């Protein structure tokens, strides 16, 4: 049994315009201490996934069916009280916008020690001490002094450190980090990723990292799920996805990243845009944008399958590379053709380890 198992999760939003199918039979797992990436563009359903895990889906959204098992217990059957003690205690969350995650009218120290006291049943002095330790562990200089500063007295990067400190304060088993570095400058992003990496290793915390940035995933994650229009189109260990992507959408995403030092005159693009989640294209949702689409793609909805065997994927029990494209079930006449170039000097990784990288070119 994995620490977290999500099975056939369906989240719907009932809006005036129609029913938004935010996730469709979504299944995946996260092992203890694992770093799991969820990638996709806006509208792919990645943030809904994390909110569902915390049972924070609000009206007009509902979790229609499925199970979310955390250490074997179905979160969807817990009462509010049980959920509250789980949130922040065993599962913590880090958002993109640190400033709104913090309460502007309490000092950062108070916010951390409040979380600690709530979950760990410590007295005030002990909670304060632990809060200062936590602030120190996330690299806040002069933690004891800054304990009584208010959030607005911190820079964006420092605020995100505070949010991470709050998340860590109760030693959770799983941290859900939703675009934690997107709002930060690149040099600060590097600091925060390094910090997350450090604390995840030190406390053996599992992390579900939600991001649009394939660079961040490559750096940070063990396994990754690429989402498109509310469902995974590819799920695999990170190296497989980067060096041997098996879904045309993954290929398109990778080849549209601007890379320093490549000689391409034009960037590759994926034509069109993410479909409307109310009226999804029939068959394979990606077919209107897919360079390999055939007639069958407009009729048959491809299932997530093991790319080696073509057997239905078992995302909860297996680590195999899986993708949802008819090319892997023999229902496509043509083949997926693209090239993955691994940059580097002669061998890989580059001898000085300084400049090697994978680059995907569509056809």
């Amino acid at each position, binding site marked *: 049994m994995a620490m977290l198992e999500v099975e056939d999760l369906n989240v719907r939003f009932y809006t005036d315009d129609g029913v938004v199918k935010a996730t469709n039979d979504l299944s995946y797992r996260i092992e203890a201490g694992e770093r799991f990436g969820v990638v996709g563009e806006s509208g792919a359903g990645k943030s809904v996934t994390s909110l569902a895990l915390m049972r924070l889906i609000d009206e007009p959204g509902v979790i229609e069916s499925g199970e979310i098992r955390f250490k074997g217990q179905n979160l969807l059957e817990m009462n509010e009280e049980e959920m509250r003690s789980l949130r922040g205690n065993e599962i913590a969350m880090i958002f993109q916008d640190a400033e709104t995650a913090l309460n502007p009218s309490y000092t950062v120290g108070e916010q951390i020690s409040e979380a600690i006291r709530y979950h760990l049943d410590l007295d005030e002095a002990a909670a304060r001490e632990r809060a200062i330790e936590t602030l120190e562990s996330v690299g806040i*200089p002069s933690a004891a*002094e800054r304990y009584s500063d208010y959030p607005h007295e911190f820079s964006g990067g420092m605020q995100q450190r505070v949010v991470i400190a709050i998340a860590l304060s109760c030693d959770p088993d799983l941290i859900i980090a939703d675009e934690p570095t997107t709002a930060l400058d690149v040099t600060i992003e590097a600091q925060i990723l390094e910090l997350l990496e450090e604390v995840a290793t030190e406390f053996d915390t599992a992390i579900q990292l939600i991001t649009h940035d394939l660079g961040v995933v490559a750096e940070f994650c063990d396994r990754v799920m690429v989402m498109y229009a509310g469902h995974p189109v590819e799920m695999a260990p990170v190296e497989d996805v980067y060096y041997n992507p098996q879904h045309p959408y993954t290929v398109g995403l990778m080849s549209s990243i*601007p*890379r320093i030092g490549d000689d391409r005159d034009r*960037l590759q693009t994926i034509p069109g845009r993410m479909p409307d989640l109310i009226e999804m294209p029939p068959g394979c949702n990606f077919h209107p944008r897919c360079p390999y689409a055939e007639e069958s793609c407009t009729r048959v909805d491809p299932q997530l399958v093991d790319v080696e065997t073509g057997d239905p994927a078992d995302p909860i029990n297996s680590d195999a590379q899986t993708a949802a494209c008819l090319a892997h079930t023999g229902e496509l006449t043509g083949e997926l053709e693209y090239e993955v170039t*691994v940059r580097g000097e002669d061998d890989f990784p580059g001898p000085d380890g300084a400049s*090697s990288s*994978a680059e995907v070119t569509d056809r």
Partner: protein
Amino acid sequence: MSGSEPLLRVEGLEKYYESESDFIDRLLGRQKKVKAVDGVSFEINEGETLGLVGESGCGKSTIGRSILQLREPTAGSVYFKGQDITTLSDSELRDLRKEMQIIFQNPQSSLNPRLTVNDIIGEALDIHGIEGDVTRDARIKDLLERVGLNASHANRYPHEFSGGQLQRIGIARALAVDPDFIVCDEPVSALDVSVQAQILNLLEDLQDELGIAYLFIAHDLSVVEHIADEIAVMYLGKIAEIGTPEELFVPPQHPYTEALLSAIPEPDPLWEGDRILLEGSVPSPIDPPSGCKFHTRCPRVIPPSDYEFEQEEWRAVMSFRHRAREEDIAVETFGDDDDALTEALRDELDLPSSLTDPEAERVVEEALRSVADEEFAAAESVLRETFETPCTTDEPALRRTDAGRVACHLFDPAYESGPTDGTRTDDGAVTGDGAAASGDD
């Protein structure tokens, strides 16, 4: 390029703001200047693109707005087609806006939600008049198609479009007046990667067809590389380095460019390069660091020539000095025991338990004792006075090197004390004899 005069020439541009202050401060004239842009010069040729890159607060967006005179510059000149436009009257400026346009990061907020696309673009056409004998509708249709939108959608409202499509509408509106120059202020930062690439390609196509010059402002070096003929990297209101992408991306580089490049997450799980992690964040422009503004974070900050420092030790001493100046060192948390206290301070400041050079060690210890007594100013001054480095005293000027222009003393043969790293300068000389930096002798 034809002729000697570039399309746009910015000279010594400065934009200062008054800092927020209370009544008493104002009464006593204690207001401080925030130097958002602090003496910036560059040129853009017809049909070419200058990428302007830097982290938040470096002044890049202020430059874009100052060039268009949307913000009045504090000092400096902006020559457009040879004419200094900082001296123009309002009506002359209005005419000029036909030739200079801007597109923004969030097209949502810059497009009137109550107007149809037809009206949004039509409005721009009306203000500036249509040339030739095409009808207004034909021109709108042409513009929409040019930016890759379906002309039959002209009667829709902004909310009916996606982010990428809205950016296309913003571009069509800018094109309506047939400009020669467009400021693109983070035009793709809010878009998904695949859409980002579409917009970048579109901007490049338009440049090829119409010969428009761009000032392309971005926080992401990898985005500008594809579109820029020249790139300027900014730090705290100043240009740190400027050159073609080839010049910029190949070492030797300004230490800040080097760090920015190395911080971009590499989409390759087995990438094994060394990441340069800068400490701290960009200092406040209200009271910026002396000398080179990057010295509070620079990993290569030049050590004093008469002491022997490992580069990392020296970086830690510099950070110690900076934090003493900011009084940002917590003291009271470490008990009364003197030894324990200095040890805890060293730990907090990332200083090794003893420095390589015993002389330097003595000085640092003295400074630590001052800090223990909360005499921050004393600590700062002993460090400042004993350890001299050009990085904190002299402001580096942009100097031409083999590869672009760089504002860093490491590239200046006048300072001989830099660490040896094959840093080449004008005449091909190598600066730095390495005596100060290497710890292995």
